[in-house]
């Protein structure tokens, strides 16, 4: 199942000649040390953003949604835009861990831990928006199908918003389980290295008494596969259902069957971009360049250019379909997207999402770290605009011109969004400090085949004749 040999032609997944001890040392050391100054600066900055977000939300809940700019025509604005944006970002993690695990993509090991953490934090951020966009948030629990004293009063199972509740809560639960189950062996490693009682106790609790026996490993692998199997449809279903919020409506620009694949592709697109942003920063700050290599970044850039192209195709398909449908309202909705008072948002979306990712067809650019970093941000700006375009520019000019209007956000709306960045980065900084940012045991798993040092030792094997090579490798395999 797992070859010990991997061709030298393949790029190593771990740079440098590492031993298992090196791997543990490199990845776990930052956890055991005092964090650097940059960590404190970043963490406090994140807390400030979070605080501002909390203030904005309290302000909104106390005074009412009227402190926002949304109105009788544009009922959803930055709130749901940000919701879909964060949910989209949350896709990459599970995709990397689940689908790439099933596809046996070794390169995912360097990035999956951080990507999964990102998923969980992003879903947490996303969840805030549908909660606090409710006019009466204190009654929000009515969307849950709980037995109740309000008579036989149940939620409306026809509503896509209700499907959202189930989809997102399931996704969050499974992602969290998946992430945590992978963390257990690494927590055990930290526990075993721990020098203080407190740390030993905490990581001991967190590792659930992991002893590293063969049975332990066997069960963990089985669990990982089961959860991967569960998560895979979820990756596709969550954003599909989010897209149903729009697709099941009657509003031109929303009511379209292309939405599920289009949303999923877009979500992966933005999710990978966000992973790039985070990993480029993490590998630099935590000195993990050997584990998160240029090769990893390139692999993800390839996914970005693929999904970016899918998204671009979807945009063009939408335009074509609106014309081809022959429906006046459909055609006009797209016309007003492109040419109406919000023209700039459409063009921002097109530039960031369709045009700029095409630059990743150049290998040089794919492997250029600063360029990748900039592109990762550009893509996420573009994807934010995509959601804005779908939500706001469909609503602002729909059927009756008499109801048309404009929408601009106000400070509590912006503050809420900023606050979710605060939440996200607060969590991420805590994660980077207390959790192994790279999956130690998974790196070790591929180290002996895909590590640079290992590959160097392949030299002698590579120089052997075909017969010799075959003989040796076959024998190896037979053992």
């Amino acid at each position, binding site marked *: 199942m797992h070859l010990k040999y991997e061709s030298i032609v393949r790029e190593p997944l771990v740079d440098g000649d590492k031993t298992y001890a090196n791997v543990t040392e490199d990845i776990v050391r930052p956890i055991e040390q005092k964090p650097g100054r940059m960590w404190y600066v970043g963490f406090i900055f994140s807390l400030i953003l979070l605080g501002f977000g909390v203030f904005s939300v309290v302000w909104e809940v*106390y*005074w*009412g*949604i*009227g*402190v926002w*700019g*949304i*109105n*009788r*025509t*544009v*009922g*959803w604005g930055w709130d749901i835009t940000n919701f879909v944006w964060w949910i989209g970002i949350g896709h990459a993690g599970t995709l990397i861990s689940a689908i790439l695990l099933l596809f046996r993509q070794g390169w995912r090991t360097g990035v999956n831990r951080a990507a999964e953490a990102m998923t969980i934090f992003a879903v947490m951020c996303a969840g805030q928006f*549908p909660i606090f*966009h*409710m*006019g*009466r*948030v204190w*009654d*929000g629990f*009515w*969307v849950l199908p709980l037995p109740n004293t309000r008579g036989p*009063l*149940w*939620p*409306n199972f*026809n*509503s*896509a*918003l*209700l499907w959202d*509740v189930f989809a997102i809560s399931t996704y969050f639960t499974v992602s969290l389980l998946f992430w945590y189950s992978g963390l257990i062996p690494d927590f055990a490693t930290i526990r075993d290295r721990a020098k203080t009682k407190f740390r030993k106790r905490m990581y001991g609790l967190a590792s659930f008494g992991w002893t590293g026996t063969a049975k332990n490993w066997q069960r963990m692998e089985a669990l990982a596969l089961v959860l991967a199997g569960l998560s895979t449809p979820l990756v596709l279903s969550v954003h599909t259902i989010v897209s149903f*919020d729009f697709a*099941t*409506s*009657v*509003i031109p620009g929303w009511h379209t069957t292309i939405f599920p694949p289009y949303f999923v592709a877009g979500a992966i697109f933005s999710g990978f971009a966000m992973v790039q942003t985070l990993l480029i920063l993490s590998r630099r700050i935590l000195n993990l360049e050997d584990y998160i290599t240029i090769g990893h970044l390139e692999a993800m850039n390839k996914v970005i250019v693929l999904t970016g192209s899918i998204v671009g195709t979807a945009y063009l398909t939408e335009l074509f379909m609106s014309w081809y449908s022959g429906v*006046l*309202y459909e055609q*006009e909705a797209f016309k007003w997207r492109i*040419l*109406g*008072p919000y*023209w700039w948002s459409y063009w921002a979306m097109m530039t960031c999402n369709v045009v700029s990712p095409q630059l990743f067809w150049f290998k040089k650019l794919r492997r250029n770290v600063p360029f990748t970093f900039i592109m990762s941000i550009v893509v996420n700006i573009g994807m934010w605009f995509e959601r804005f375009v779908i939500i706001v520019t469909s*609503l602002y*000019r*729909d*059927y*009756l*011109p*008499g*109801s*048309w*209007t*404009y*929408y601009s956000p106000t400070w509590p709306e912006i503050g809420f969004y900023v606050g979710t960045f605060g939440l996200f980065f607060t969590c991420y900084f805590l994660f980077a400090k207390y959790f192994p940012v790279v999956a130690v045991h998974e790196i070790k798993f591929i180290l002996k085949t895909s590590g640079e040092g290992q590959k160097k030792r392949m030299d002698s094997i590579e120089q052997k004749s075909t017969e010799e090579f075959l003989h040796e490798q076959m024998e190896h395999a037979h053992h």
Partner: protein
Amino acid sequence: MSQKQYWKGLEELQNTAAHQEVVDNEFKEPLPGISDSLLDATTPRRDFLKFLGFSTVAATLAASCEMPVRKAIPYAIKPEDIVPGVPNYYASTFVDGGDYCAIVIKTRDGRPIKVEGNTLSSITKGSTSARVQASVLNLYDKARLRQPMMDGKEATFDAIDRGLQSALASNTKPVYLISSTIISPTSKEVINQFLAKYPNAKHIVYDAVSYSGMLLANEASYGKRALPSYHFDKAKTIVSLGADFLGTWLAPVEFSKQYSAGRKVTAKNLEMSKHYHVESMHTITGASADMRATCKPSEMGAVAVALYNAVNGTAPSLPSKKLNELVTKAAADLKKGNGMVVCGSNDVNIQTVVNAINSAINANGTTINWAVTSNYKAGIDSDIVAATEAMAKGEVGAAMILGVNPAYEIGKKFADALKNVPVRVSFADRMDETAQLCNYVVPDHNYLESWGDAEPKTGYYSLMQPGIAPLFKTRAYQDSLLAWSGSTTTYGDMWKNYWTTKLGGQSNFDKALQDGIVEPAGEMPMGGGTFAGNIANATAAIAAMKPTSGMEVVVYQKVSIGHGGAWSNNPWLQEMPDPITKATWDNYACVSPKKAKELGEELTGITEVVTKKRVIKLEANGQTLMLPIVVVPGMHNDVVAVALGYGRDAQIGRAGASGTDKLKGDFGGKNAYPLVGYNGQTFTYNAAAKIEKTDATYEVGITQTHHSYEGRPIIHEFTLEEFSKDPNALLKERGEEIAKYSVVPWGEHEAHGEKKEELATQEVEEGFRKEGTLYPNYEHMGIHWGMSIDLTACTGCGACVVGCMAENNISVVGKTHVLKSQEMHWLRIDRYFSGMPDDPDTIQTVFQPMMCQHCDNAPCENVCPVSATNHSSEGLNQMAYNRCIGTKYCANNCPYKVRHFNWMDWNGADCFDDNQYEDGRRDDLNDDLTRMVLNPDVTVRSRGVMEKCSFCVQRLQDAKLTAKKEGRPVKDGEAKTACQQACASDCIVFGNVNDPESEISKIRKDNKERVFYVLEQIHTLPNVNYLSKIRNTDEIWAGNEEKDGLYKAHI
């Protein structure tokens, strides 16, 4: 006197020893609780005082803690005629100056909550206007004076009467009573008594917006200083020269009803009046017109003369082609008979020419009635000008100001003059601009608190009875005048006496009071008049008027605010979007798109959404006003129009006040009265003007930003000719959309599929309902409510909008939130322009009232995650406010965008403390006093829930319950929605569509050629249908790329 002895018992009588002992020793047993030690203590008294002190302090502290104040009136003794929860109705009369409407006051538990039209009146026929609907809010206006004032201090009526009578007695100079037109016969009698008491007294009548020109012209032409009765219903050709008779001119409530009666078109009855309209700005009357052209206000005289000449056979040569065309056509039509010309000018000469035309076309006696004259306006401008001069010279001893506000309307000149009058009395209901200058302010009752009467037309009377006892220490002005004239009777007695005598007995009086009107039986008599005016002089005078070359300003009344008065402080009216501009809370300079482009503010599909409007400097009549511009297609390119009623003093109330806020800048608009000029005979409401752009901007809260309906099939317009040639055009168009979905290819109806017609017949409609969806069809048994709205009849006047606000407790959100499009009106009127933006004469305007369509397949219903909005078996789309969690998904998914969210805590119905929204101008609505206007049958919605039109479900329930109690089905017309009742033009018909005899069923059947449903093709199955707009004109511009520039440019 015998010495009787009384005793309590035998012991006392016999006075035994035992008894004596008892008497001596009162406390024969030791007192419980008081031990000897306490009584013997050194300071028991002090302790007692300590206890007393402590408990008093404790009680005081406890009592001073805020406790909820519960205000409930226990009906231990039930007042006669009041059943809690059951409304009482009183016929009465709405009067504001000369504005008149016969009304019915709806009171609940003793307080008026709604005003409806009185259908018994042959004049207003149950119609109302936005102002009549809103008048009930004026009763509860927080800015009303709560007591009389003397020299700026509170006073009693006694003190005022004494002070004033002595002041008047010692006064040798004349007493001036300055009032608006008074149409009450008994009040006139009171005034006469008062004038008789003070021989040198003078009654000066003037109207804030004057009709002197007409009165004087009529005097010269017909020998009567009066206004005729107009019969728009009898007119086949109506020519209006700047008279906004459906909005603000003379008696719009009466005229709207008549006008719509002449325009009820069906495929079988193609009779329709033809309405020609010439104006300088854009009014709702212009919007309804069949042919419209614009001219500068200074050219109006020339247009009148041209029309006169055209009627007499001379071709016109006016500055614009369209005017010439209009005048030629109008003249030809007028000559056919049954014509009528009305003119909004206040110029005697122009009105004389108009009289000459009406005489030439024999309008007098057919459409213009001199047998029964109208008493709406009687003010003569020169009187008030002369009075002001006399006051300025110190020739006046006392000025009493009644129902007018000259310090605001006439302005500084009057205010300065008033200072020279020693005794100044105001009857104003609030400290308005004039009352502030008076040393006696004796507030009059609100009309809903008053007894009274009105004679809107000679011989046609209307009685006024109160709906509530006076809320404050106010006194009917008639009582004040009677008291000051030394009379001992009260006005109430005098009034009752007058009417009992006049009607001949108590029972007749009771009947009249119940009906609210006293009218001669039968049809209104018709009479002509002989024109005796000097037409030559008038035309010469008009020719001498030099038309100006530059810009001109027109001062106009908004349909909502009118001349100002108490209306300025009415938040319902302030927030009612102006029918044409859709702007709220401000006045502004209306300019044409072309002029705006010259000012650097081109109106495009992109810039239309900008709320910050450029401020211009407007100079006219020696005054300078800084006003934001609002672009109005249809305005003459060289005209700027400014509304009256704004720029009010802070003391008239918070909603109407204007001023400058440190943070927010200017608010409340600017006073346009100073732009009104005086030509030596009458006031002029237009002047040469200079405008200059500035760099400043000002935000105007406009509820509708887009002007064109983009050629979308949401409105269907036809010319009368098109409609008569092919009445089925609309049915065909609808059929093309829906017929193919009305059958399923595999269904039993395949046979029908073969002969599938393109007409939207009832069969096709039914098929579409059933087969246009995957879901099973729901059969509506019993009642199925439906509504029909006639776009031809709708004038956009907004009475329904305000009626809906009053009925359904709709929140006023204030300008800040209107700017964010967060207004709450359940019923909005979409206004669409079509035509070339640069050519005002091409603009055609159409109104579409839009409210919840109560879709039987409602997109809002299935998206609500908690089923807070759902469908009733009677076809109502209902809202369960309690269940709503406020996701706003339903509002997004509503194709009509008629759902409104409670963005803030508008009325203190929220569970959070102290978070009620306040903006400084709308807040009085939440005062305990103002909240008395709330309809107890309708929930006041809390923050965070969605709301929308309910088809006035409380009224439907009421009608159903009444019917149920009487054991019969609901009769057609028993359940009326508030909008339907308010409408002066009979646009709205409501009823049970399952009842084939109901009016709504009949309309949908008999007028099926005009019926359409908005967005029918998306299978929402609306329960509101519209009737197509039929315009008696040559061509419809809308949707025609070449002629509809607004559509082409997507503005």
